[in-house]
């Protein structure tokens, strides 16, 4: 009995606090929005929220893992943009679509790995390094595609119907009226959350995020974990970029821009501290849904992009203040 009580307390006082706050906020937002915006509670709207959420969710997946080990990956938006136009470019060539997709995914993973290796060598500089890699990547990608067509930055080609069906708003999943990407994302969430909590690899994230030296003594290779997270981040970013191509039907390098800080916002609002060792993808999923529902709500209220940004910013502060306040320096001594 008392044991159960303490275990409940342990649950509450741990990182799950942010999870609970997040879910509460999500519920409140949904209720308020459904009551105040007509048509918000429609299946149509739910579908589009979930669709956009899956994009953000995938983009923020890598960011979450990277943050758990105390890193940051700002190359995500550039990776998204680059994969987006490069895949469009490949669709325009004689390369079979599936192969093209594989190539881009591989590219994503390798760029991620590169990020991982370099930022591992450059401890504490991950933010700026990934930014540099991102700049280079997106610049190179645009130059590359420009040589093909004279349209730099945008690439045109026939996107295979089956591919755009995956992530188009009118896509169908086994005849059901929502695009497969939503299902894919949901599956990925379950899988990843289980991994993080139940598997060695998952726990290794927190070990490294919490105390690198101690982890090394338990022969948990910080290098492998660190590089691994960045590799996944690069991979998921490139997948997001490719899915966005299916969504919009034409390659545009700018599609990633919106994800530069939004992924970080989703991670942070969810409750993964950027310092590493805490949080998890479950938290991020909540963060993603909160942001997406909020967007839809604000648009419904007729607020434009500008106002949305402001509200996001205003949301981050109290959320973080609620669960991620550092103890007063007195108590860190």
């Amino acid at each position, binding site marked *: 009995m008392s044991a159960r009580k303490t275990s409940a307390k*342990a649950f509450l006082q*741990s990182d799950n606090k942010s999870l609970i706050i997040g879910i509460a906020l999500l519920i409140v937002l949904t209720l308020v929005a459904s009551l105040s915006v007509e048509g918000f509670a429609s299946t149509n709207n739910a579908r589009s929220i979930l669709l956009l959420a899956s994009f953000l969710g995938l983009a923020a997946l890598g960011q979450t893992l990277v943050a758990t080990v105390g890193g940051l990956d700002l190359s995500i938006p550039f990776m998204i943009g680059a994969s987006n136009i490069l895949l469009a470019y490949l669709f325009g060539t004689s390369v079979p679509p599936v192969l093209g997709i594989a190539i881009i995914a591989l590219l994503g993973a390798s760029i991620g790995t590169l990020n991982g290796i370099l930022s591992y060598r450059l401890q504490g500089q991950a933010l700026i390094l990934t930014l540099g890699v991102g700049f280079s990547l997106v610049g190179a990608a645009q130059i590359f595609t420009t040589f093909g067509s004279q349209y730099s930055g945008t690439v045109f080609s026939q996107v295979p119907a089956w591919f755009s069906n995956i992530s188009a708003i009118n896509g169908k999943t086994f005849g059901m009226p929502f695009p497969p990407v939503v299902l894919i994302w949901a599956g990925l969430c379950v899988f990843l959350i289980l991994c993080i909590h*139940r598997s060695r690899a998952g726990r290794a994230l927190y070990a490294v995020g919490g105390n690198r030296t101690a982890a090394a003594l338990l022969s948990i290779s910080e290098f492998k974990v660190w590089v691994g997270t960045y590799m996944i981040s690069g991979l998921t970013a490139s997948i997001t970029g490719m899915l966005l191509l299916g969504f919009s039907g034409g390659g545009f390098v700018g599609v990633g821009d919106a994800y530069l800080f939004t992924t970080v916002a989703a991670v942070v609002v969810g409750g993964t501290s950027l310092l590493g060792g*805490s949080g998890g993808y479950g938290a991020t999923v909540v963060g993603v849904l909160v942001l997406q529902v909020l967007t839809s709500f604000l648009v419904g209220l007729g607020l434009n992009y500008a106002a949305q940004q402001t509200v996001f910013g205003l949301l981050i502060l109290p959320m973080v203040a609620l669960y991620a306040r550092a103890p007063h320096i007195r108590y860190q001594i």
Partner: protein
Amino acid sequence: MTAISVRNISKNFGETRALRDASLEASFAEIHAIVGENGSGKSTLAKIISGIVLADGGDVDVLGHRPNSPTEAIAIGVSTIFQEMMLAESLTIWENVFAGSDSFWKRSSSVAEKKRQTKEILERLADCPIDPDWPVSAVPLSVKQWIVISRALLQKPKVLVFDESSAALDLDATSRLHHEMLELKASGTAVIIVTHRIAELVKFADQATVLRDGVTVGKIGREEMTEENLLRLMSATTGHSARAASKEPVFVGERHPLLEASNIGLTDGAQGFDFNLHPGQIVGIAGLDGAGQAEFVRILAGIDKAPQGRVTVRDDTGMMQAISNLSDAEANRIAYVSGDRKKEGIFANLSIMENFGLALYGRHSNAAGVIDQKALREVFDREKDRLSIKFGHRQDKITTLSGGNQQKVLIARAFALAPRIIILNDPARGVDIGTKQDLYTHLRAFAAGGGAVIYLSTEIEEFFNFADRADVFFEGHLFASFEQDRIGEESILGAMFGQSEPVDMSEALEQELPSNIQPQATAS
């Protein structure tokens, strides 16, 4: 006249009641010790005196003030040396020594003057050449310790609070330190010292305030200050002295060494030395700070690679296997426990259970890497009872435990790996006497079961009646080796300072073997 008088202090950290009813009276020109087990509230009390922690209740009077911040405390003449060394590693030595000496707008003295003073005081204290422009990250631990001490001394404090740090000073350094304290005392300063080194304490403290579970359970004056008294007060339970570990018979095993290190050189080109370890043996490792003993045990544990020479272990089939990295060590069931919990031990972000379990996931997870929580929990319950670890719930964060209990979790983790060799690197550092006694007993039992123990310590009295052999390092190599009855303060100290003849290791091994085969002979 009294410099400090704090009465009936209480302080809670969330759930933890760090102090419940702590009082302390200290007058000028006295050395006043605060003693108590881990987590008994010493540091907290010290932090209250130096304005870091604010008491929840009770009255604080430090030099007639109630300091609310370190800034205030320093202003009124209270200097503090914290348990954890406060250093800006990336800055230079002089900048660290004079940290905070200036006001916001005005320098206390010129840079050149600061460097001069830094050089002067550090070379006196650390007695080695110092360049004030070195970055702190470039100097060894002992010098770092001296840097924080000099910072405090240069503040010319009326009250000096010294929370004994986890960083060990070697013996003559310690005596130099004590000398400094005595000088301060002579100059009228009130010196408050928090330490676990009871034996030394007794030699030079005038007063001692004893804490137990955040309550002041006694104040002992010079005359009745004996280890026995202190220890009795400190812990209701453990009434015995640091040296009084009763020795069970040791394992009688096969003559072949379990671990062999041959021609080891800690720097390449160094003249190599050999080392071996037999089943059932407990080998103590000693040496002045920086004499190479720490590097050596890390090499044995497979953490670092030996610049020269090789380490081999006899596996179950009797084959000798080379140890060159952690996975070799793991494969050959060598476990390592570091004394530097915060840096190399605990995961402050994780629960007690996970801190224990992390090492075992490899063993208790299936091919897909899925962890068998149930099996782990069983192991945990077994080990926690064995080491009698005190905690609330196994899912609580490990930082809710006191340092000593954190250490026990780490040792339990090592035992849980069912190792054949345990290597402990100063595990009792900052750990109270009761915990130490438990630890010795467990290690003894482990050895009796056929395991072997390598035990590095900065407090040589830990070896007495505990180690079967004490190997002493001097200037980067194994300098001398002593059998159980030859293990003594004088012999070891001497060797640590390079006195007495270097023992020819080869013959040392000769005479060692028999004693190892019939330990009873010497024991009875």
